């Protein structure tokens, strides 16, 4: 029984650590949208410089495009928050362990 408890604590610690690392990695999804939005903003600046009278249209198109591009980054953020605050894997583990008790 003693040995089993130690094993369970070790498994729980590994799951917690993996969850923390995974939460960090999930936020790396923000790198792609960052690069993409940078390109879009640069092109918008070019367009506004070439055609200053179309500023309003360019700005609204840029905002919509930026929001669409941002979606994947936001998905990463939501996954990371789920891992940090809801911790589904650790809860599953705890439920599984309690069936042995």
């Amino acid at each position, binding site marked *: 029984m003693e040995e089993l408890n130690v094993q369970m604590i070790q498994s729980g610690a590994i799951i917690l650590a993996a969850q923390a690392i995974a939460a960090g990695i999930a936020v790396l999804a923000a790198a792609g949208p960052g690069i993409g939005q940078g390109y879009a903003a640069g092109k918008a600046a070019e367009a506004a410089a070439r055609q200053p009278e179309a500023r309003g249209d360019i700005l609204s198109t840029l905002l*919509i495009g930026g*929001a669409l591009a941002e*979606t994947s980054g*936001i*998905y990463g953020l*939501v996954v990371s928050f789920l891992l940090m605050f809801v911790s589904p894997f650790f809860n599953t583990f705890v439920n599984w362990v309690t069936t042995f008790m």
Partner: protein
Amino acid sequence: MVNFDIRTYRVFEVFGIEIWFTETIRNTWIIMGVLILFAIFARIKFFKNVSDVPSGFQNGIEALVEMFDNFVVGITGKRYHYLGKWFFGVIVFIGISNISGMFLLRPPTADISTTLALAIATFFLIHGLGVKSAPLKYLKSFLEPFFLFLPINLVSAIATPISLAFRLFGNVIAGVVITGLVYNLMPYIATLAWPGFLHVYFDLFAGLLHAYIFTVLSLSFIMDKIPQEN
């Protein structure tokens, strides 16, 4: 560890169905109350001295409504001008909810239920108006560019409300979590001034921007399914 869970105040049971009175519902009612009181106040003020040549308060309200109506008509065309009324409500509600973080309320939009409800309303608008305006063209739009794309188009139809909901939710919850972490990070006295910058960025700027983006994206998704008038 800071707790970002939505607080539940009370659980009612009506005919065996549990109804949870949560922080989100309380804050939604507070915001709706503010909006309804403002509407009643404006109505009374107009009722007393309505004039053809508006000035002051009436002028401001009329300019706001007219500006938004023109904006919607510019996207949808004259035939669907009535969409402006619904989306004016949506943009004002989302905007005020996102700003409400500045008044230390938890924004109702920081709950996936609220944003998913709004996005599902958009989903029904997209497909309802699509069927109503041109049924055959609507069915054919699922077979674009050719029939093998049917499953992909079906998935994208379901993904539209989910992506709308998660975009808004993710942005608002990011603001709530980051602001909350900074509040808990500092000694109490320092929190009086410094996180103001975070409130201005996350609540005011990103909040209003995402209220606008939710509306514009909903409108452009609706317009995708409707044949354009010339």
